[in-house]
């Protein structure tokens, strides 16, 4: 397909919600004269995604990520703007469109809880019109990639969280969708299971060229998988580009970690940058990018340095700091 596989222009979604005050008086008022409020969950965002891209969708809780995913999959109708996914308007939910997409939600499951995954997979194969031999081949291939074996023959309720998520991924990918929407696919998984799911997604993208749009609260998922991120806050798109660009945009400083041979008081580091942490022999400083080389040289000259590391500050801290700042600015202006 030529051109972007996902194209959103001025996409917005407004929810009408009813509000109730606490207590009996509030309940009676709610019953007699219900008050509604319009909430703008997504506020005119625009972006395009090319076939085969893996894009991370970032933002705090309530930023509008899941609402956007629901619009992209056609689960809900946009209130405004234009949207095209795989050549279709998602909200029309045509079968040809549904055969090209999948949505995996880390906190929800499509496989039948009390039956082995293979029973649900058989239904999915029939629904998507996959010939039985071909379905067996795909199940075998995906099971191998996901390191699933006898687990597919056990009732879902008997599987661990990580095994269930892998089985869910298998079910979601059986029809070889061109676009994968993943909403917190590693939610609740331990570190090893998270890593295996990430490896699988990267491998799947390489093998099939599928487009992936991924939301996750684990920055490890984003940094491992997504060369490009969309950062959304209060329904608006704040950043569309690489994580490195985002870090540079958010952090004009770099982080310098020092392990010193001797103990020094905090005052000793004045003039080298902003002292972020000082604990015994360990010191962490934020140094403006433009002064980095000069300040590092000065530090090495002034102190007996055992170890030194220069890095970007953790991106989740930067994003969290940014959103706290924007939220407080927004409250101040209201």
């Amino acid at each position, binding site marked *: 397909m030529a051109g972007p596989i996902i194209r959103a222009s001025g996409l917005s979604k407004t*929810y009408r919600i009813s509000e109730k005050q606490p207590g009996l008086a509030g309940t009676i008022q709610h019953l007699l004269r219900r008050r509604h409020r319009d909430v703008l969950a997504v506020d005119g965002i625009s972006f395009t995604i090319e076939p085969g891209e893996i894009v991370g969708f970032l933002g705090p809780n309530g930023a509008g990520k899941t609402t956007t995913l*629901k619009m992209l*999959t*056609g*689960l*809900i*109708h946009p209130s405004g703007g234009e949207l095209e996914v795989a050549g279709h308007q998602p909200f029309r*939910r045509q*079968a040809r469109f*549904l*055969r090209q*997409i*999948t*949505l995996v*939600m880390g*906190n*929800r*499951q*499509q496989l*039948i809880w*009390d*039956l082995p995954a293979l*029973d*649900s997979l*058989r*239904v*999915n*194969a*029939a*629904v*998507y*019109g996959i010939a039985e031999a071909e379905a067996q081949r795909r199940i075998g291939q995906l099971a191998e990639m996901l390191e699933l074996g006898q687990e597919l023959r056990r009732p879902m309720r008997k599987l661990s969280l990580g095994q269930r998520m892998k089985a869910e991924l298998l079910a979601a990918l059986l029809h070889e969708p061109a676009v994968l929407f993943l909403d917190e696919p590693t939610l609740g998984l331990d570190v090893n299971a998270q890593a295996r799911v990430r490896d699988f997604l990267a491998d799947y993208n390489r093998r099939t060229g599928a487009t992936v749009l991924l939301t996750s609260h684990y920055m490890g998922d984003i940094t491992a998988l997504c060369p490009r991120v969309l950062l959304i806050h209060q329904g608006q798109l704040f950043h569309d580009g690489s994580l490195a660009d985002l870090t540079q945009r958010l952090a004009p400083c770099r982080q310098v970690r020092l392990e010193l041979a001797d103990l020094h008081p905090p005052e000793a580091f004045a003039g080298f940058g902003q002292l972020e942490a000082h604990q015994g022999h360990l010191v962490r400083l934020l140094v403006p990018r433009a002064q980095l080389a000069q300040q590092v040289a000065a530090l090495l000259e002034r102190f007996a340095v055992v170890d030194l590391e220069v890095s970007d500050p953790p991106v989740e801290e930067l994003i969290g700091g940014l959103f706290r700042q924007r939220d407080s600015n927004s409250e101040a202006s209201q």
Partner: protein
Amino acid sequence: MSWAWRVARALLGSQYALMLEYRAEIALWALSGVLPLIMLGVWSGSGAAAAAGLSPQQLSHYFLAAFVVRQFTVVWLIQVFEDDALQGRLSPFLLQPLSPLWRYLAAHFSEQASRIPFVAVMLLVVGLAAPGLLWLPSAGALLLGILAILAAFLLRFLLQVLVTTLCFWSERAAALDRLLMIPYLFLSGIVAPLDTFPPGVRRLALATPFPWMVDFPARLLAGEPLNVALGFGAIAAWCLLLLPIGHWLWRAGLRRYSAMGA
């Protein structure tokens, strides 16, 4: 093999396997459907049936048939749909190229199939307790009765689809279904054969879909003489009326769906 046949086979197979997992629960559901047998006891002890021109044998055949009809026309779509919608389980189904209603229909058929042994045992117990109550319907009555039960179930299912679509507007549409249970219980023939109703009430009942859901198939199964074409025609007419309304409400509801809980 056509796509529809393969989907139906896969859905029925998986749902039947699921229902067998819940066999103890289904046995209890089957037991809870004994209202027609209780009503048989109530009516047998009074002279009201005789006053309405029903012999004791007609009465017992009717209520036993109504018991069987009731067992195989139970519809619980709204409860499961409401739960799925609120818990976010509906969304994955909506993203597949198959209406979720087909899944629910398959689940109902599978649940009915898994009830068969329990209903057979209950009838056996009735037969052992009171040997004179059971009878063997003629092949024709049995065939027509089974077809009528199937048609009655589809009518009930469609009626509940209408109420179910209201879940898109109200999070607790199941309350409406409980309201519908009142006319269903009294007008369908579960608590009394329609022949025992005062003529005015009977005419009113026949203008609703309810008597075609129990009274008609039960009387067919009991081998009573009645206008078969009228019964099947009434069910078909109600289905043809409800089908486009349900389709329209479903589509309108999907536009309102907010995928809560997902």
